[in-house]
């Protein structure tokens, strides 16, 4: 019978194997998709503020559906399917979208001015990314922190602050996606 030391080694091996199987959880295309949406959506606050709401009302859910499809396709490509993980992602982002949707009446009713509410939305999304990084995919933690820094910077940047924040967040998403792709060691399709 195996010694307890050998058994401990075996269990450590299993732990390492499980961690290895969880690397590269999302494909680069999902990060790239949201990098584009963030770049466009954030810039619109500076250049077409009256269209921002409509943009996110359409792009948000559509981006979510596209992400789910891309995630599933990626699972098929790499040969690993985990419905529970997928549902966890879905509930996380759905919860954030719902929170934002429920806050919209504050702007519509005039209770909070739209420029202020937009910053509150940024803070909510920043928290969402940060928590996603803690519970779902590690790189998103840094994207969340960058968004929080972006929120603070908006109080000091006199013009085109949203565009600048959008560019930086977009770049961080691309870099995060690239890092995840390298960690996963499998190519995107």
């Amino acid at each position, binding site marked *: 019978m195996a010694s307890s030391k050998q058994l401990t080694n075996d*269990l450590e*091996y*299993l732990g390492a194997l499980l961690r290895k199987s969880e690397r590269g959880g999302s494909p680069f295309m999902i990060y790239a998709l949201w990098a584009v949406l963030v770049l466009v959506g954030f810039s619109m606050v500076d250049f077409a503020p009256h269209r921002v709401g409509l943009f996110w009302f359409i792009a948000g859910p559509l981006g979510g559906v596209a992400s789910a499809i891309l995630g599933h396709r990626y699972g098929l490509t*790499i*040969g690993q399917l985990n419905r529970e993980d997928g549902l966890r992602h879905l509930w996380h982002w759905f919860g954030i979208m719902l929170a934002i949707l429920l806050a919209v009446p504050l702007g519509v009713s005039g209770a909070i001015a739209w420029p202020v509410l937009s910053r509150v939305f940024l803070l909510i999304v920043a928290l969402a990314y940060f928590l996603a990084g803690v519970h779902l995919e590690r790189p998103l933690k840094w994207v969340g922190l960058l968004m929080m820094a972006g929120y603070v910077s908006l109080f000091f940047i006199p013009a085109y602050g949203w565009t600048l924040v959008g560019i930086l967040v977009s770049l961080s998403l691309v870099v995060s996606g690239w890092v995840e792709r390298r960690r996963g060691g499998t190519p995107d399709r």
Partner: protein
Amino acid sequence: MERILEHRSRLALCVLLNRNDCMSFSRLKGLLEETDGSLGAHLLKLEKEGYLSVRKEFRDRKPVTWYSLTKRGKEALDSHLGSLSRLIRQGSGGRS
């Protein structure tokens, strides 16, 4: 303890498949770093024991074999891991 799961690779296969709904042969091979023959032999043993179910399909005109853990396989794995934990605790307790 389940004798068939005393082999590290077979135990690893069951642990991975317990964590995921299903995994392909090539994914398992990449993670365990086994040869085709060796991995195939382990998977066949587990399948014959009723621990795995197998599904074959074509994807991009290439054959893909998917494996998932059966209910019997989950129960065997739980039982085996429980036994391992008890053994380790006994081993640690004996030394103190």
